[in-house]
Structures are given as C-alpha cells and as structure tokens.
C-alpha cells in the first residue's frame, strides 16, 4: 500500500502503459525514493494532509504519481514554496523533493534558510551527481574527475568541488534530523525507506526540519547499466558522500500555531482605529479661507523634532475637519542628519503635497533658515529658533521674520526635547490657524500612552504661544 495513484492519469492522460509506468529511465533511483516516500505517507496515515512540492529536473513530474495535494515550484525554490504552504496551513504535512542541481546549486539559499528556520518540513534530496533532465551536465555534486557534457575532460578543481549537502545542513542549529542514505543494495534500500519515514514522522510530530539525502543512480547520464550504476554509487560516490546519520537531536516541538483572527473588533483595535468622538463629524474650526490651502516647512537637524511637530500639525488639521499631508525628507545619515518636513493643509483636498514655497517656515537651525527662508511666500512667516540662530539672514521684506528662544524655553521647562512643541505653540499664536484648544487636545491624545509627558508638553505649547504674542 502506498500513497501512489493506481493509475497515473496525469501521465499522458493515462493512455496505454503510461497509466501505470513512470517517466523515469530504466534503473533510475528516483522511482525508488518516491515509492519509499509514498509508503511512508501511507504508513503514517497522512495522505490527506500531505502537500508535495515538485522541483525542476527529472522529478518535476512527481505530481503524476503521488496521490496527495501537489504543487510544482520554480527551479531551486521548492523549500520556499514548501514554507509558504506550511505557514498557510501548519497542520499540513509538506514535503519538498529536489534533485542536486535544484537544491545544491540554484536553490542553495532557499534550502539553507529553510533548514536554519527549522519549521517542520521534510526535504528529500536526490543526489545523482549529474544533471538528468537537461542531458547530463555538471552538477554541484559531480565528483572530481567525473565526465559530464559540460566537463568533458572530467571535473577539475577549476570547476569547483562537490558540495556535501547533508554535512552542510547538519552543522546548522535548527534541523532535527539529517541523514544520507543510498539505494545500491537491499540493506541500503531498507535504510533509505526508514530514513524517509522518520523524516516524515518528525514533521507529523512537529519536531522540526528534517533532511534526507538519497544517493540515486542515473544510469543514462553515467553511461552505465543500472547495476553498474549501483556499483558506481557504492564505490565512487560514497567515499565523497559518506552514508549515515549526520544529525539526530531532540528539540522542543513546534506549535501551537497561531490561529488567524478575523474578529472585526480585534482587527480595528490592532490598526489603531477609534470610535468617532460622540459619533459626530468634527467641527470645522480653523482660520483657512474657503477652499484655502496652506503650506508649512519644518526644518532642522535629526532630533529637533521637526517630523513629530509636522505630524501633530497634520493630526490637528484633520481633527479640525481639514485635509492635510506630511512628507518627510532626511539626509542619508541614520541619526543626526538633516530632517525636513513638508506639511500642507487644505479646506478640501490637498493637491500637490510638497511645500516648496511655504506659507510658514519653522527653522530649528541656521542652515535650515538659510536654505528655506528665501523660499517663503511673500507675506509669509519665517519662525526660527533664536536660541541657536544668532543672526538671521535678510529675507524678502514682506516675510514676517520672527526669532524666539525656542530651545531656551524648552530648557527652562527642564525638557529640551519639547522644543518642537514650543515651536508649534508659537506657530499657532502667529498664524491663528486653529483654536489653541484644538492643538492642545491633539497633543494630549498623542501622549495618551505617556500621560506623564502631557503637562510639560502642554506647558511648552502655551509658553511658545505666549512668547510669540509678546514678541
């Protein structure tokens, strides 16, 4: 009994002899490895749960034979596809079956990362030291000296040396079971069948990632009879690819697996959605003319808080029933470089979101004022931190150039980081864009999870506003 179809309807539509014959050449080892896999599936009672991932290469047609859920992967990607299946349905039993070109050459990244991830998967790796489907070319496991169509004088050192995949996988921490087996005599075949069954059982038990390398015969491309090919594997391959268990460790079983939640309340809470305040639409309280639009530029160094202030401005505007956008731009440094924010607020829809000619500029340092000051619209506002900018450059006379001791006020409050909120208070006082309470309630809400900071920020805002009124 096994999990093979009794008729291979996918093989030439089940016509003639093909309904019960594989497409493999006489004596090919794939047929054996796949039968052992099918027997293990049957024995463990997991036929309904099994998903087999076929590779590219001679074994690509695995889905002709295995009566399980089947999928066929791109060359080398079977372990990545297998992981997708396993994570989609952790109760499924996912087997990736791959040849040596697929697994050890083009798919080396995928197999190593899947192995070290360690999530329960079963990988059967058929190593026959040659590319079969494409016609006998050099494989990553081809032996030194072995002739192939792309190493016609034998594999030399300049073509690289054979990759021992079982050893490579076994030295990783995550896999629980790695064994190399062969098929060249009755004893080895029994061991191979047992190893495949064990690799599958470990997945069923949730133990972890297991890997069985099977040395298979490719009589056709070795140019040998099937029986000679068995001998070749025994005598030539096993010295390079020693048989045996490479790793077999106990591990904490995986699971329980997360159960996806689609509960609307949970989803809305996760994304931070809140009920409408009193169920009413926000009051449109602001100083914008109908269909009016304002642009702001907040500029300084990283750490000045320009982006946070910009986001508070945007949130306040949206809470006031307006549309608003924010675009940050940074220097290439991860920390401490330039940090500019463009904000646009519109009664209606913000069209172009950049503020290349802002109605108001907030400059936290001299380079920012020098760079963006001249861009401020005629009649606009250029607010700068007088604590750090000693002398402001000359700007268009219609621009209201206002220096306030922004950093100084923040220091007086014992909290230098609140200078951006001092600046917002000043901006509010100088533009009257919203009622003060609008801003304050936005600040309070933004700090809801850090209530200790609310008062110092509110005070920073009020002090900034007062300084602006007195200036």
């Amino acid at each position, binding site marked *: 009994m*096994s999990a*093979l179809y*009794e*008729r291979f*309807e996918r093989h030439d539509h089940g016509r003639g002899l093909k*309904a*019960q*014959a*594989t497409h493999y*050449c*006489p*004596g090919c080892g*794939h047929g*054996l490895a796949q*039968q052992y896999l099918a027997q293990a599936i049957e024995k463990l009672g997991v*036929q*309904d*749960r099994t*998903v087999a991932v076929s590779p590219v290469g001679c074994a690509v047609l695995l889905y002709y*034979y295995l009566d399980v*859920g*089947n*999928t*066929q*992967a*791109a060359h080398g*990607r079977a372990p*990545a*596809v297998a992981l*997708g*299946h396993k*994570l*989609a349905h952790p*109760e*499924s039993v996912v087997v990736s079956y791959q040849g040596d070109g697929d697994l050890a050459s083009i798919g080396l990244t*995928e197999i*190593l990362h899947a192995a070290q991830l360690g999530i329960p998967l079963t990988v059967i790796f058929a190593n026959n030291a040659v590319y079969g489907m494409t016609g006998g070319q050099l494989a990553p496991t081809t032996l030194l000296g072995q002739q192939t169509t792309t190493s016609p004088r034998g594999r030399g050192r300049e073509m690289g040396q054979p990759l021992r995949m079982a050893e490579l996988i076994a030295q990783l921490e995550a896999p629980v079971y790695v064994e190399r087996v062969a098929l060249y*005599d*009755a004893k080895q075949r029994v061991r191979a069948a047992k190893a495949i069954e064990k690799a599958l059982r470990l997945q069923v038990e949730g133990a972890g990632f297991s890997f069985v390398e099977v040395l298979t015969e490719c009589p056709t491309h070795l140019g040998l009879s099937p*029986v000679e090919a*068995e001998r070749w594997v025994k005598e030539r391959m096993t010295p390079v690819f020693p048989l045996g268990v490479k790793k077999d460790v106990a591990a904490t079983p995986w699971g329980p697996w*997360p*159960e*996806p939640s*689609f509960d609307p309340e*949970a*989803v*809305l809470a*996760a994304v*931070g959605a809140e*009920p*409408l305040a009193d169920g009413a639409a926000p009051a449109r309280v602001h100083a914008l003319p109908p269909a009016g639009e304002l642009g702001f530029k907040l500029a300084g160094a990283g750490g000045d808080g320009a982006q946070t202030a910009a986001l508070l401005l*945007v*949130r306040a505007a949206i809470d006031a029933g307006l549309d608003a*956008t*924010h675009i940050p731009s940074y220097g290439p440094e991860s920390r401490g470089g330039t940090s500019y924010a463009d904000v646009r607020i519109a009664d209606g829809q913000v*069209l*172009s*979101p950049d503020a*290349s000619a802002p109605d108001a500029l907030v400059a936290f340092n001299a380079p920012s004022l020098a760079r963006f000051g001249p861009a401020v619209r005629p009649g606009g506002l250029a607010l700068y931190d007088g604590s750090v900018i000693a002398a402001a450059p000359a700007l268009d006379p219609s621009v209201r150039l206002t220096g306030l001791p922004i950093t100084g006020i923040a220091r007086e409050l014992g909290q230098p980081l609140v200078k951006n909120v001092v600046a917002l208070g000043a901006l509010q006082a100088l533009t009257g864009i919203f009622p003060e309470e609008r801003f304050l309630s936005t600040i309070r809400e933004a700090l809801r999870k850090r209530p200790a900071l609310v008062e110092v920020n509110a005070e920073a805002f009020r002090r900034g506003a007062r300084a602006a009124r007195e200036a």
Partner: protein
Amino acid sequence: MARMEARPKPVLREDWCKGCGRCVEVCARSCIAPGEQVNPGSGLVPISLRLDDCNGCGLCVDACPEPYALVAAGLAGRLAAARPPAPWAPPPEVPAERVPVPERRPLVLKGTHASAVGALLAGCRHFFGYPITPSTEGAELMAKLLPALGGTFLQAASEVATVNHMYGCGGAGRPSMTFTSSPGFSLMLEGISYMIGAEVPGVFVDVMRAGPGLGNIGPEQSDLKLACRGLGHGNTHAPVLAPATPQEMLDFTALAFELAFRYRTPVVVLADGHLGQMTGKVSLPRELARPGLPSWAVPGDAAHRGNLVCSLLLEEAQQERHNLALLEKYARVTAAEQRAELFRCDDAELVLVACNSPARTAKGAVQALRAEGIRAGLFRPQTVWPFPIRHLAPLLGRARAILVVEASDGQLEDELRLALSHAGRAPGEIRHVRRLGGVLPAEGEILAAARSLSAEVRQ
C-alpha cells in the same frame, strides 16, 4: 525454531518492466534473470522470473524502481482491474465574507502604513518580505501588527524566496502579500511569472524608486513598464493599481486582494517613494473581509487532495490552450477593471495624464491653469494595466492635446500610446513633462509646458 510464514511471491507485470535488472542481484535464490525477448507493448526487454525457489522475501519488489512492474500478488490483481477514475471534482468554494463595521475616526497614516492596514482589513494574515527602502515601513508595521491577529510574518532570505513563499501560501489558498521596491521587484519577476502561469493569487506593493541598478531611494515611476509589460517570461499580465494618496494606498491594497482572488492572479500595487512616505488622512472602509478557501487550492486536506498548482504543461497544444485561457482572462480584466479619476475633464481642451505622486502635482497645476483661463483637466489612471482607455476615449473629441506628466522616461506615455493605438484612436498632440532619478515634476515646469502647448494648439 520459528516456522517461516508462507509469503506471497512477486508478480511480474511484463509490460511495465523496463528490464533494468536491479531485482536480479538482490535475489538470493537466483529466481530472476535478465530477459531476452522484447516486449511488444513497451519495446523494452523485461526480466524473466522463475519462482520455483522463491521464498517470498520481497526484496526484489523493494528493489524495483517502477511502482507497478514487479509487485506483490494482491496488488497485481487490483492494478489490472484499475479503471480511469471519474474526473477530479474539487470541493465547492468557501466564499470570502464581508463583515460590516461601524464608522471610525479617520487615521493619520503614511502611505506604506496605510497599505499595510488595507491588507489587514482585507483579511491578509501572511506577510513575506525582504527589507528594501523606501518600502520597509510597511513590512515593519506588518511585523508589529500581525502577531496580535494570529498572523504570520516571515522575513525571507531574499526577494526570490519572498515570491516563492507567496506562491506556496497563495497556492494553499491564503491571501499573502509583500512590500518591495524596484530592485526587489525585479528579483520577484520570475516568481510572478510562475504565479501567473499557475494562477496563484498574491499582492505585491512596489514602492518604486529611481533606477536603473541600485539607483537611489528617491521616487521614480521606474517600474511601470515592468509591471505592465514585463512580469517575467511568457505571456504575462496582471492588474496594476496606481494609488496617489495614502487613502488610495489603503483602498487599492484592499482592492488588490479582492482582484487577486476573483481572477486567480498576482496583483501589483505600484506606489512611489514619495507616496510611501507621505502621511495623510485615511478613512477606514465600512466593511472588513474574512477570506474563504478557493476550490482549486492545495491546503493539505482531504477535500482538495486531487488539486495541483502547476505552470508546467508539456504538450504544446495544452500549453497553447492554457495561454489562450489566460488571454481570455486578461480580456475579462481589461473589460471590467479599468479605473480612472477624471478631474475637470468635462470641457477640457488640454488633458494632463499622470498617475501616482506626479498626478497630485498635476492636479495642482490644473487648478492653476483653470485660474488662468486655460481649460485643462487631469486624467489619472488608477489602473495602469489595464489602461483605462474607456474613460479617456470620450475626452478625445474635445481635447486638442495631451500632456503626460511622469517621473520616468515615458513609461506611462508608452502605455497611453499603446492603448490609443489598440483603440484605433488618433489623438491630437501628445507632449510630456518627465523627470528622472528621484526628482518629481514640479508644478512650475508642468505649468510652463501646459501654457505653451495650450497656446500652440489654439493657433
């Protein structure tokens, strides 16, 4: 001494024996010999059996690479009687559900975050991705939020691994997505071709940046051509959505999941670096999705066991039929899914065409042109494949000229020209404003180009 039980002797099904001889060596009693006669059915030379001395050890059966050549006696009878099964009938589809939710306060989100939220609301609980600026904040938000919803976040080894995780997850019938940016999108194209071939759903949010090569992380519409014309090898097309606001980042990502499962296809949401970083007001939809399970999926259960997700069709005629079926699907998508926003186009003599961030600047330009008395409008494709020619065509009678505004070397204009050509429409003058390398078209240069084009066509 225990008595050996009598065990069944093997049966040779000669037609299926390929004569490899692997059973010959294993038989300790020399019951098996290489054959001498060609089998007329297979054209091969099967082995020959003389079972007089056979003790039923079964080693020969275990040595036979062919599953149904040398078999146990009981199986042989069943195999001979096996008849073609009834055609595989997959189980009925479990449809996705839509769950109404009360109105919520608008969120203030940047584009990438809005897209991630859209995916969660659309029922996506599987994220695979590889970090790449300027798309990564979307992935980071998914990493933060998915665990609370029992979801799975996997940082893949590469973009190549990413798309193949999605192939597996989508093949298992689950909604999955990734965030990437241009160089990463290039790497995913092989896998997208497989997804299209095997008809596997999945959502790709590509926050485009400047290229070619490593380019930079500034905004460019560098992948329009890839997304519309180059989704890997083969005759590939997939819906390509082009949002222009954080709100559309949410709405179109959610829509992408719907389209992905409706048409069994990958769907690309093309954003740009500017839009990914742009924060704005985002209203939440009034319903959430609870995914179903498609009948064609391979989830690893009894009901779906006969399913196969595969893009390999060895027979040319079969592959051609599959291609024709895909083309028919593309035609259905083209007929049903063209989307565009028309802004002041009703009486427009000059139509600006732009999508993504450049469309917002172009919209501002249209307002300014109107204030100057120039009858300008904006035609903004929201799907770039299919190009929304149906919505553009009615404007062409009145419009005397088109100005394409884009942050690429004409990739949007090529889509426009192809669509016009296929529709048999000869438009008036087509000009363009193009910026590259991370620079977006500025309102000033759009206005200058529009004024001069408008003056020219009025003469």
